[in-house]
């Protein structure tokens, strides 16, 4: 049984932040969960899907974040507790619903978890989702530790019901994807029944009246935040420097102050309710210090809000010096780290800490510079996307009209780099490849002669590309959509989607057929296997040259990692060392230098190619690449 489902109050277990959030919701008695996968949020619904049957609750992978939020809001309207989870980009998708939901309010506890990705480690953007709390006049919670992630999620449901509002809970990568000790509390024994009270319709009318009620509610929320045990101060009564921090910044600040041994000089006000601010608590501590440093991830949200509060009370508070992102004391972009906070404190307080002997540091850095090769990202061994981009590159070259590829969100985004032969030329939001193609496909009358190709993964297609395709077909646009169907949401951990015929909990579901959808829209649809390089190249070329309007080519081949979970190699691969001519071949190392599958290795000593049997998945595609047929495949 998964750790998050253990009914063992008092037991301490090691949980990932996302699992702790899931556990907190279970302890609060939440019964409905919905999400669309997106790192760093994916394991919230992912971990719940493993225990949903045993604990008898509903969890689903919704088609996108807006639908996920609507599904959970329905549960709330019917009096049940529910939670939806998403990454920062997901909240943009769901924002339209959220900014009406704030006006209608809700009944059963409703928690919206947004996991931000500072530094864009696994995102196309670096975005601070907290601004939506201010935009929507909604309470915002920011846990700092794994234990708090669980406890504050549980508390958020109570708060939501007390205020009749959805609560935003913001996590970041270093919380969601960190693990720590968590002391479990009891799971509830009783389940409420669902009923929608029609005498209390959820209508945002008149909007101005609802907006006013929302503002009053937010004031009430501020008063509740004042007494939250998750806001506290640690340090001397009148600190030389006051750090105001939240989220991951708390542990970094604490560590920096402890390591520099300046606990007697610096105080830390740790806030976990960052909108609305606990005004009295903040004012009380502002009064005690003349210099303030803000430590938070991504935007100066806390920093600006505290300064705004200060501006209203500056006559009582007197002069202050504020340090943070605005002054460049804390980097305005990228992840923050304990080192960033340490360095800010060293500058502000004129202290210094040598992390290690300088002579050692010099030697260590030198060793890396001399010996350690860089490790660029690339498609996995046997990934169908590599074969797909190979076919795209060849087809576009054969077509000869400077055709280009519009990209989308998924593993295949690596198509912008060497692993995908630099074929992909745009990448924005979910479904934007198809949307941009719909636009490019209208430009022929203005002189565009280049063929337009969009790539889109299967999960991305259902999420946001379908409306673009409908619009393109309706407006008689002209482009080729390549649907890279690898039977999973591979980038985020192989979650099932509407095309897989399985639900989040692994039950059989109606399979929403990609081909049938495209055909229903009146698009021409072909299907090919990307591992058949020749056939795929020909299919792409044919569709580029021979048909007008919206064309779709479904490239169907299961994700290599997914396949390897149940099936070993398809082929055993070998390089015939007699046949491989190496540097003398004239192919200029087509297999290793250009095709770049990690299973193929250029051996500098022999000047020939070999196969690494620990990495090769035996897809057999490289056998088609070699001009002298030195790469052999044999059924495994």
């Amino acid at each position: 049984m998964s750790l998050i489902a253990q009914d063992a109050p008092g037991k301490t277990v090691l949980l990932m932040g996302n699992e702790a959030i899931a556990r907190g919701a279970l302890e609060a008695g939440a019964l409905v969960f919905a999400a669309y996968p997106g790192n760093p949020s994916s394991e919230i619904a992912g971990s719940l899907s493993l225990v949903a049957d045993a604990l008898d609750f509903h969890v689903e992978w919704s088609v996108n974040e807006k639908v996920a939020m609507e599904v959970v809001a329905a549960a709330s309207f019917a009096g049940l507790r529910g939670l939806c989870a998403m990454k920062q980009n997901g909240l943009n998708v769901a924002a339209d619903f959220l900014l009406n939901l704030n006006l209608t309010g809700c009944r059963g506890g409703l928690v919206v978890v947004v996991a931000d990705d500072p530094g864009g480690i696994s995102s196309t953007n670096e975005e601070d989702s907290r601004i939506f709390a201010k935009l929507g006049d909604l309470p915002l919670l920011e846990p700092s530790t794994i234990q708090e992630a669980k406890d504050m999620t549980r508390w958020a449901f109570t708060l939501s019901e007390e205020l009749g509002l959805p609560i935003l809970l913001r996590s970041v990568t270093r919380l969601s994807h960190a693990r720590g000790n968590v002391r479990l509390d009891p799971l509830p024994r009783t389940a409420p029944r669902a009923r929608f009270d029609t005498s209390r319709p959820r209508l945002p009318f008149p909007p101005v009246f609802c907006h006013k009620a929302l503002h009053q509610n937010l004031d009430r929320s501020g008063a509740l935040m004042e007494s939250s045990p998750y806001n506290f101060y640690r340090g001397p009564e009148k600190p030389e420097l006051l750090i105001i921090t939240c989220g991951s910044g708390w542990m970094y600040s604490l560590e920096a102050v402890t390591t520099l041994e300046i606990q007697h000089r610096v105080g830390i006000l740790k806030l976990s309710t960052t909108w609305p601010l606990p005004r009295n608590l903040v004012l009380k501590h502002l009064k005690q210090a003349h210099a303030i440093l803000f430590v938070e991830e991504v935007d100066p949200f806390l920093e600006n809000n505290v300064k705004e509060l200060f501006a209203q009370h500056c006559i009582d508070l007197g002069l202050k010096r504020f340090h943070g992102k605005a002054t460049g004391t804390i980097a305005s972009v990228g992840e923050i780290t304990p080192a960033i906070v340490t360095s800010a404190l060293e500058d502000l307080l004129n202290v210094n800490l040598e992390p290690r002997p300088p002579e050692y540091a010099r030697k260590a850095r030198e060793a890396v510079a001399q010996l350690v090769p860089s490790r660029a990202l690339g498609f996995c061994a046997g990934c169908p996307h590599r074969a797909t981009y190979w076919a795209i590159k060849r087809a576009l070259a054969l077509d000869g009209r400077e055709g280009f590829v519009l990209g989308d969100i998924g593993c295949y985004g690596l198509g912008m780099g060497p692993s995908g032969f630099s074929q992909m030329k745009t990448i924005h939001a979910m479904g934007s490849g198809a949307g941009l193609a719909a636009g490019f496909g209208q430009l022929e009358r203005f002189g565009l002669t280049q063929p337009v190709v969009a790539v889109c993964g299967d999960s991305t297609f259902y999420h946001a590309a379908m409306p673009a395709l409908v619009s393109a077909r309706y407006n008689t646009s002209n482009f080729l959509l390549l649907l890279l169907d690898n039977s999973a949401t591979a980038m985020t951990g192989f979650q099932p989607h509407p095309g897989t015929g399985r639900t989040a909990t692994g039950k059989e579901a109606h399979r929403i057929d990609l081909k049938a959808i495209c055909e229903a829209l009146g698009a021409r649809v072909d299907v090919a296997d990307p591992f058949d390089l020749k056939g795929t190249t020909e299919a792409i070329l044919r569709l580029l040259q021979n048909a007008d309007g919206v064309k779709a080519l479904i490239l169907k081949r299961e994700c290599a990692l997914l396949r390897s979970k149940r099936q070993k190699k398809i082929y055993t691969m070998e390089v015939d060392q007699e046949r491989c001519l190496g540097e003398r071949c004239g192919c200029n190392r087509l297999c290793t230098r250009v095709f770049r599958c990690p299973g193929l290795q250029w051996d500098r000593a022999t000047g020939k190619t070999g196969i690494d049997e620990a990495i090769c998945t035996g897809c057999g595609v490289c056998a088609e690449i070699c001009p002298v047929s030195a790469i052999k495949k044999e059924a495994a």
Partner: protein
Amino acid sequence: MILARDPFNVIIGGVGGQGNVVASQILGQTLVNKGHVITIGETYGASQRGGAVMSHLRVSAKNPWSPLISEGQCDLLVSLEPVEGLRVLGYYGNPRVITLTNTRPVFPMDVNSGESAYPELSEVISKIGQLSAAVWVVHATEIALTMGDPIYSNMIMLGALSAMGVLPIDREGFEVTIRELLHSHRLGDNLKAFDTGAEAVKRL
């Protein structure tokens, strides 16, 4: 066992797909079961796509620490791939660090393509030795391949780690964690991997 320092900072370095995250989770849960307070940070961005991957594991008797270890603060390095170990030492190393390394290289894309070179293994190990207080090695991938699947190399590394006596982990604690976290049908193989690692590890 009393920890040499508090927090005691462990970094598990390697390449995406080597089971780094699972190894850190199993090590962490085993230590939690022994009463320690653990914080783990995963730098996972490239986890499935051949990039360099690290887990930061902080072991304390008292309280949680931040999930990121700072420059020069690594006490124990578990390196699933030789140059990745060296990469970690470059920023996190210090004269007191104890290193355990696998000996099997995973060539980066640029090395496979012939654009850059992977250094001689002996040179990498010797450099790791110069930058560590002690170095232990185990041929984890080779052993795992004889077991039929390279994925066992992370369990072999944990077995090796248990034999070094720097952290309070033993076979019994490992088994409890494995039973709790992994599919039971692989229990026997994982235990075998652990035992083999414990026997095969050597101090240089």
